């Protein structure tokens, strides 16, 4: 019962908060001609920062190239900081150099908003790398996502120019992410999260043993980690570490931050294209799928730890306790709830060890990553959903014999090819990567669990990389050159391809003449379309990934649990 209350408060409360935030995001990203003088002064400042290119109106190709150029610079600058961490300041605990393939993987990961971590933060990274490399990327990769969504939405209104990427990314970073992060970081610090530049503390315990306690500038890091659907933790165990998540209340705040901006992005999209009822339909579809995953995760996590089932000397209490923290409440509450939220978005932080979730409870995060559109990453979640919408509109139109159109523009073969490519790319990266690593020592030698659960570890890792999630079944020994290179490439490819293709679709749609709304137009804002959209998402997801699910989590469930 308290679990249902927790879910209701977190999901419902955030949904309520997302409404005014979406309104604010529209003011930030697309102020329009009605903006006040101070708002316009901010935009002029952003234009000046970008120099001569700050004022150029960019059509979709130019916008995309600007985005890629900025992301390339992001990669290079962050890489340089991390590669030199051993000679740069802010390293009180003397972390050495980071191995090159790990630097590549980490920078690719944070540049793509994934935050996959093949390292443990307090072991490998200096404070300088954590702040100037990783935390900086957390801001600007999230800002990139929001900017891209705003550009897409503007394109769909028929404007030939999508805006100016350099101005958009600053708007998102300074007017949205920064104030939100300041507020959240302060609350986290007040809740007990450390914030210091002092090195690790050396303690002598009550029984006389030495204990080195790592700390650092955690509160600032955690705030933008959650708000920007980044997910990379300051410490290895992420938000199960008591410093990263000290209390039940910081736990709740963190969960709210995971879905807040992704939810608000849907409203921002609706406001920019001027179709709020359509946005509400999409929001409803996403919410339905999210709640289904939460219900599945919570239900299956309520089974007690199977490994203790044959031990009468251990209490058989509801809930699988392995990998959970006591301060968050029941083991089938916050852990699986967080797991569903973090993988429905592209966050990837964890409030419980996913490798230790019950098999089918661990399948829910995988489903979230395979669909990658139930709220999804900041900005890009809605961009992914846009691809599903195009496909749903096309299929629906074909089924009833009407020309498919979306927001008054015809959806034709060219748009469908681009959309299909976007969906196929994700499936390809996940399945081909998993297949390769499941049959070679690259994957097989790095497993922490044998049998179907081992397969799940590999499947999860590629799903996480391709979906730009970043969580993992962390028993996997993934700090090897093959894992670093393979997942690094997948993260980059499936970050930019699913951004470029939808922007191209929007650009292509914008060039067409607007068709008038008539009685024959298929509505995209009623329950029928909602059901159609859910069906499209599930069919594409189920068809693509069900066989892999059967080999991993479902096999494990039937072999061991039932």
């Amino acid at each position, binding site marked *: 019962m308290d679990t249902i209350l927790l879910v209701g408060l977190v999901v419902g409360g955030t949904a309520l908060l997302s409404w005014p935030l979406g309104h604010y995001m529209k003011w930030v990203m697309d102020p329009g001609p009605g903006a006040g003088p101070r708002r316009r002064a901010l935009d002029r400042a952003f234009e000046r920062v970008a*120099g001569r290119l700050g004022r150029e109106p960019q059509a979709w190709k130019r916008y995309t190239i600007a985005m890629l150029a900025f992301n390339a610079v992001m990669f290079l600058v962050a890489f340089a900081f991390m590669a030199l961490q051993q000679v740069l300041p802010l390293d009180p605990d003397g972390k050495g150099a980071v191995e090159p393939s790990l630097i590549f993987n980490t920078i690719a990961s944070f540049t793509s908003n994934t935050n996959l971590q093949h390292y443990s933060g307090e072991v490998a990274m200096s404070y300088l790398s954590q702040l100037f490399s990783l935390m900086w990327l957390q801001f600007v990769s999230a*800002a990139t996502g929001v900017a891209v969504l705003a550009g897409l939405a503007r394109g769909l209104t028929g404007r030939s120019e999508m805006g100016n990427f350099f101005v958009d990314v600053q708007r998102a970073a300074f007017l949205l992410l920064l104030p939100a992060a300041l507020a959240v970081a302060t609350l986290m610090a007040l809740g007990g999260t450390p914030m*210091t530049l002092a090195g690790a*503390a050396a303690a002598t315990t*009550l029984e006389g043993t030495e204990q080195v306690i790592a700390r650092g500038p955690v509160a600032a890091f955690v705030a933008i980690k959650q708000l920007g659907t980044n997910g990379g933790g300051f410490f290895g165990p992420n938000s199960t570490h008591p410093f990263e998540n000290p209390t039940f*209340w910081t736990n709740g705040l963190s969960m709210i931050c995971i879905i807040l901006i992704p939810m608000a992005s849907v409203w921002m999209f609706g406001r920019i294209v001027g179709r709020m009822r359509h946005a509400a339909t999409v929001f409803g579809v996403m919410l339905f799928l999210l709640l289904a995953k939460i219900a599945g995760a919570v239900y299956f996590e309520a089974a007690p*730890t199977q490994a203790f089932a044959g031990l*009468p000397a*251990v209490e058989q209490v509801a809930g699988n306790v392995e990998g959970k923290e006591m301060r968050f409440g029941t083991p089938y509450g916050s852990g699986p709830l967080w797991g569903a939220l973090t993988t429905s978005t592209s966050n990837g932080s964890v409030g419980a060890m996913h*490798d230790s979730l019950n098999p089918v409870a661990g399948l829910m995060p995988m489903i979230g990553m395979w669909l990658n559109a139930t709220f999804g990453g900041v900005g890009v979640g809605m961009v992914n959903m846009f691809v599903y919408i195009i496909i749903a509109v096309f299929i629906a139109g074909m089924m009833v014999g009407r020309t498919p159109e979306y927001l008054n523009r015809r959806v034709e073969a060219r748009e469908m090819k681009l959309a299909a490519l976007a969906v196929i790319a994700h499936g390809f990266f996940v399945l081909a990567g998993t297949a390769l690593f499941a049959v070679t020592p690259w994957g097989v030698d790095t497993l922490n669990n044998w049998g179907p659960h081992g397969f799940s570890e590999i499947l999860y890792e590629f799903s996480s990389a391709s979906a730009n999630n970043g969580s993992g079944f962390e028993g996997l020994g993934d700090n090897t050159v093959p894992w670093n290179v393979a997942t690094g490439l997948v993260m980059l490819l499936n970050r930019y391809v699913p951004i470029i293709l939808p922007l191209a679709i929007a650009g292509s749609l914008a060039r067409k003449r607007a068709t008038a709304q008539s009685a024959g137009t298929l509505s995209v804002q009623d329950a029928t379309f909602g059901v159609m959209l859910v069906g499209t998402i599930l069919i594409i997801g189920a068809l693509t990934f069900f066989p892999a699910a059967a080999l991993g989590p479902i096999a494990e469930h039937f072999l061991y649990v039932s």
Partner: protein
Amino acid sequence: MRLLLASVRVTAVTIGVCVVGYAGTILGVAQALVPVAANGSLVSSPGGGVIGSRLIAQAFEDPGYFWPRPSAVDYNGAGAGGSNKSPTSADLTERAEGAIARFGATPESPLPPELAAASGGGLDPHISEHAALYQAGRVASARRLSPSRVGALVRESAFSPGGALTRDRVVNVLELNLALDGVSASGARGTVVPAAESRGAP
């Protein structure tokens, strides 16, 4: 190219504002408002040395102390982590059998499961009130205190981590053990632990 120049300029400004400005502000606010928490909630002994952190579990093996949850990283505060074992894994069964032996659990007096299961970060400072009361008998006889006294101490220390939103109360193992030492400061325990000297025994 002008694209690269624009990118570099935006880079510089975002680093200045979102890293230096932001982190600096939060650093100042945290150190000013909550200095103890900002530096890791460290606990000091009367002698001045750091005993540990209120938020970070530490190892306890003396029967006169309450024992925390198992840790997959042996309470390493500089390299935390979980076991990441599947809940169907035979390794977990093995570890649970070790815990049963250590706590002396029997089917008539079964072990609370969190004392057999590792926490996510390996540094979980809490156990449930129930798990603490489970150990109260052992602690009481090791310290030659009455079990009801120890039980009362546990109940006093227990709190509900989520207020009205959580049902089960928990105790902070380190704080409970410090309170215990305060109660039996005369050292009337069955076994002498060398650590008493390093703590500045009264």
